């Protein structure tokens, strides 16, 4: 099995770190293969930035992702640039406040930047997103992801970041519950 995930956002949102956590969780935690390639511009902050994570059971030759299975967008410009590449039956996840998807496709969203500001540090939006992503997609196991978050963040900030991860995870759980709830009704833009 091969899963291709593209995460996009601004430089400084921690998009690459989010990708690395997922890749590492799959490789070390879940004992699968993974590659991460990143794409970014000259800006240290604010530029367009993306991480392409491939997770598979066999060695991965070609690490680039042309049409991801899952697209995570943490900025409007990232969404604008990438949404056309998402596979027809692919999964879209966005930051609820910063990205307004066009058209009527189904997607998941989490206000991760706002949550991060509430938790006291905007920089943790990516970890919230990782938590949300893990719960929604189950591409990596919760244990592996949580563990990888703990070893990937600066020393002394582990606890805060795990809290952020959990915040994302829980919001996903609530979303899924809500969605199951509404499943009988119309299917469309949810959460």
């Amino acid at each position, binding site marked *: 099995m091969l899963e291709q995930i593209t995460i996009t956002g601004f430089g400084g949102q921690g998009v690459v770190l989010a990708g690395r956590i997922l890749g*590492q969780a799959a490789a070390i935690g879940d004992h699968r293969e993974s590659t991460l390639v990143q794409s970014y511009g000259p800006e240290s902050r604010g530029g367009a930035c993306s991480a392409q994570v491939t997770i598979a059971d066999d060695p991965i*030759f*070609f690490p680039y992702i042309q049409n991801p299975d899952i697209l995570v967008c943490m900025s409007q410009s990232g969404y604008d640039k990438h949404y056309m590449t998402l596979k027809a039956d692919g999964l879209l996840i966005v930051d609820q406040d910063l990205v307004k998807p066009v058209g009527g496709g189904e997607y998941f969203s989490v206000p991760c930047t706002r949550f991060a500001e509430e938790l006291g540090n905007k920089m943790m939006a990516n970890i919230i997103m990782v938590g949300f992503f893990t719960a929604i997609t189950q591409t990596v196991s919760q244990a592996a992801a949580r563990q990888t978050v703990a070893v990937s963040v600066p020393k002394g900030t582990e606890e805060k970041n795990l809290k952020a991860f959990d915040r994302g995870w829980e919001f996903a759980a609530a979303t899924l519950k809500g969605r199951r709830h509404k499943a009988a009704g119309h299917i469309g833009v949810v959460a």
Partner: protein
Amino acid sequence: MTGDEACAEGALAAGCRFFGGYPITPATEIAEHMAERLPQLGGTFIQMEDEIAAIASVLGAAWAGQKGMTATSGPGFSLMMENVGLAVCTETPCVIVNVQRAGPSTGLPTMGAQADMMQARWGSHGHYEIIALAPSSAQEIFYQTITAFNLSERYRTPVFIMTDEIIGHMSEKVIIPAADRIQTEWRPKPSGRKDRFLLYKPGKNGVAPMPAAGEGYNVHVTGLTHDERGYPEMSVDTQAQMMDRLCRKILDNRDDIIMTESHHLDDAEIVLVSYGISSRTSMAAMQQARAMGLKVGFLRLITVWPFAEAQISALAERVKGFVTVEMNLGQIHLEVMRAANGKVPCHLVGHPGGTIIAPDQVIATLKEAF
């Protein structure tokens, strides 16, 4: 672990204990990793004032008896070229990593390319031979860095590792073996009377033993044309002797130096030739092509310089054509053409740089050309 980190770890495993560097995207992480790790291992990291100073310091450290390394990208690689010549001429072992990005000039600093391949061969003035390796994954960069040091020590010559932004920044699983499972080599050491020692008198393999400063050999090392004593000698004969030694120690040992990897060459009608990151495209393309029923094989150049021309010439006798896949507008392609010597058509799947080549492009060329 990223490719850059794997490179630094490979160097440390090879016994490298000196790094003179200057930051440049996308090679900076190698320096950063060395800055962290070297003092822990009794080595020394220094960030010099520019790339010229960086490579000069590496050569100095080599003569102090260390294995030294530097890492850079295109602009810095260009600046290092004068002292690459000094390293070649004085037969100073060292490893120079070029994490290639798209050029020319400042180009696309954060985006990959493979367009410095000919520069690696010809970038310094004067005629000389060089060794260059091209890894294709983070794991391989770890091992090739060790190999680069071993070749550098064995042949007393600078060795280039020609990687690229994509591998440098790509995170992959890297397994680091136990130290005792890693074979490391050192430059041949002199023996015999110190006062009769000749610094450039070749031993076996055409390589002369090399003492370190402070060992009592009173060596004289110069970038001027020099005789076996190392003394400058402004004569055509000395030049001829020196050039002969410098070129032959590489060319006569091609069998030892040239490493390639073959995939399905036995029954191949069309051979993809590639290296570095583009070989991942080529592997994927070969599998796709095979799945489509095309008899495609793949020759991966692990050693890019000296060039595997004998192997390609031999293949040219029995295959229907070559397709070189590289992220430039035709560099190694020229060499493939020359080695194929008109026997079969040679095609290029090139790219101006900035992103990896898609396997589809290779397939398209295969379909169109054959």
